[in-house]
């Protein structure tokens, strides 16, 4: 009853196409994240759903109702802005009530909704404060409260965590996930932070250059990226990309790396030049001779794990993930094995092929 359907929507700014025929269905109760670098069109797409940008072509249906020509206030969606946009001269209570007053809702009903939202977000004590008297995290909460009181068909979040510091961001991310589990409402969430997308989303929509690169669950996108762009954008530390020459010998396929090492793998691809993609956790540091060797350049100890930045003989850079108590030191020559079940090959068009 509160799903969102985009059918072939498009938009241009001054002759430049910024959204090019995107179709997408967001299920009722689903949390979908639009993930992409800046300029990918993810914010524009969200704002088109909100009504803050016009839709030049295609249709938008929110909760079964054609909405592309409705004013923002009439679309039955609520938005949490990146900078919260709390009215500074109003108390928290007035901020939350403003939208309800504008549609002439009864005062008693407004009060009930504000109280309910305050209880859900544990901010009863803050209702009479001004935004300036709140911390960043509290403001964020009020912004969400202002959305909740509208009891909308869907919530739209525009990079809501980007103004919080690192520690608070992690905590708020978990709170948002809990809130979504509790409220079971439709949410569309825009971010450029792949960690937020991975941890929050039911499904991720990855946008690049105004079009959709991939739609899938977080682990789908992580394990089976559809393109080199997705493979490089999702995951931190990022996937390693190595030049590789694919050949078939004795019915077995072999990818030869720049330093001459051979990696056996199984893909249905013709021989030729490819890029081999492998995530750092699939590169294993061994004490004994293994598939190839590299020289450690920088060793980053994160405590629970260690990132080893290596150079192969031919100068190729490669990052391996080791345990928290790794013994590798800068300058060491280390042996490396590849987890062949986690190899990806990218052809010259950037299309991904996954090893079996």
């Amino acid at each position, binding site marked *: 009853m509160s799903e969102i359907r985009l059918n072939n929507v498009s938009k241009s700014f001054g002759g430049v196409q910024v959204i090019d025929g995107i179709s997408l269905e967001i299920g009722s109760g689903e949390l979908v994240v639009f993930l992409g670098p800046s300029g990918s069109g993810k914010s524009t797409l969200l704002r088109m759903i*909100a*009504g*803050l940008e016009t839709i030049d072509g295609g249709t938008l249906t929110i909760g079964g109702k054609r909405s592309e020509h409705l*004013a*923002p*206030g*009439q679309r039955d*969606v*609520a*938005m949490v*802005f*990146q*900078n919260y*946009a709390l*009215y*500074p*001269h109003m108390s928290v209570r007035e901020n939350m009530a*403003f*939208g309800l007053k*504008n*549609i002439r809702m009864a005062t008693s009903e407004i009060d009930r909704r504000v109280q309910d939202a305050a209880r859900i977000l544990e901010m009863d004590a803050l209702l009479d404060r001004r935004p300036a008297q709140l911390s960043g995290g509290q403001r964020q909460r009020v912004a969400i409260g202002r959305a909740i009181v509208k009891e909308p068909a869907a919530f739209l979040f525009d990079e809501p965590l980007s103004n919080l510091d690192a520690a608070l961001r992690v905590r708020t991310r978990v709170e948002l996930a809990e809130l979504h589990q509790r409220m079971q409402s439709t949410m569309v969430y825009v971010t450029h932070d792949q960690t937020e997308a991975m941890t929050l989303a039911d499904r991720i929509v990855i946008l690049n250059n105004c079009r959709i690169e991939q739609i899938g669950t977080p682990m789908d996108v992580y394990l089976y990226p559809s393109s080199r762009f997705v493979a490089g954008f999702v995951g931190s530390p990022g996937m390693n990309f190595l030049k590789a020459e694919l050949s078939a010998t004795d019915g077995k396929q072999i990818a030869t790396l720049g330093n001459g090492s051979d990696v056996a793998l199984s893909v249905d691809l013709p021989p030729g030049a490819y890029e081999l993609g492998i995530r750092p956790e699939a590169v294993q540091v061994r004490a004994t001779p293994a598939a190839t060797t590299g020289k450690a350049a920088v060793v980053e100890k994160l405590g629970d794990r260690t990132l080893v930045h290596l150079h192969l003989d031919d100068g190729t850079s490669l990052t391996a993930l080791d345990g928290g108590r790794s013994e590798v030191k800068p300058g060491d020559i280390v042996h490396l094995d590849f987890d062949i079940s986690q190899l990806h090959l990218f052809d010259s068009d950037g299309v991904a092929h996954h090893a079996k």
Partner: protein
Amino acid sequence: MTPTTVRRINWVGGIFTVLTVIIAVLWAFPIYWGIVSSLKPEDEVVRPYIELWPETLTFRHYWFALTQTQIGSWYINSVVTAVGVTVLTVSTSLFAGYAISQLRFPGRTVLWWLILASFMVPTQVLIINHFVLMANMSLLNSWAGIILPQLIHPVIIIVYKQFFDQVPKDFREAAAMDNASEWNVLFKIYIPMNWGVTTALSIVTFIWAWNAFLWPFLAVTRTEMMTITVGITQVYDAFGVYYAQQLAAAVLAGIPVALAYLLFQRKVTQAITLSAGIKG
């Protein structure tokens, strides 16, 4: 993390100090000298050298201004016209600034350029025009005649536009999501978010209007319709030129402004810095 830079007061700083003290003295001196002169007998004032303190201290110029002139009527005229100018200027400028800043309508850019250009029109051209216009409309020697030509204060529109421009567009969009009408956006969001500007601009407009001289001087010929700034120049008409008497009247004329300044000290400073480009 409170940052205090190490600022060395070296010999360069020393030179600046001396320079600035000199400038300060030059600045303050005319005011001091004006007040002192108003307390001197007339013959001391016209001596061809500068005396820093009266030989004979006298208050009779003040007594004269208060009892022998129509200073009461002048005060009333000044209050009415200054308040009229303030209310009309600020309220129309507020709408104009909002429209130019936030609404997209045909002719918007032209209007904006016109407002900027109106800075450039030599005052005399306008004054002569205004005089002929007011004369044709038979508004000379009336409050309306004093008020109307003073309503053109493009700087206030510009300051409002500036402040409305600076309101992050998020607020406008949040209001749109909140079903607010254009009037609600203006009166519930933009004006309350800029109360400080409105207060400050009102005070400074009032002071400008109070101190206005050239136009009220031209527009009014009947003594009882004069504003105080014009009236004080009449003090000498009856008895020839008496500098000390004029100065005494000028000091009296300045008192309300000085009072406003002391009462609303912070707001006035804010207003001045505002119109000089410093955000409050």
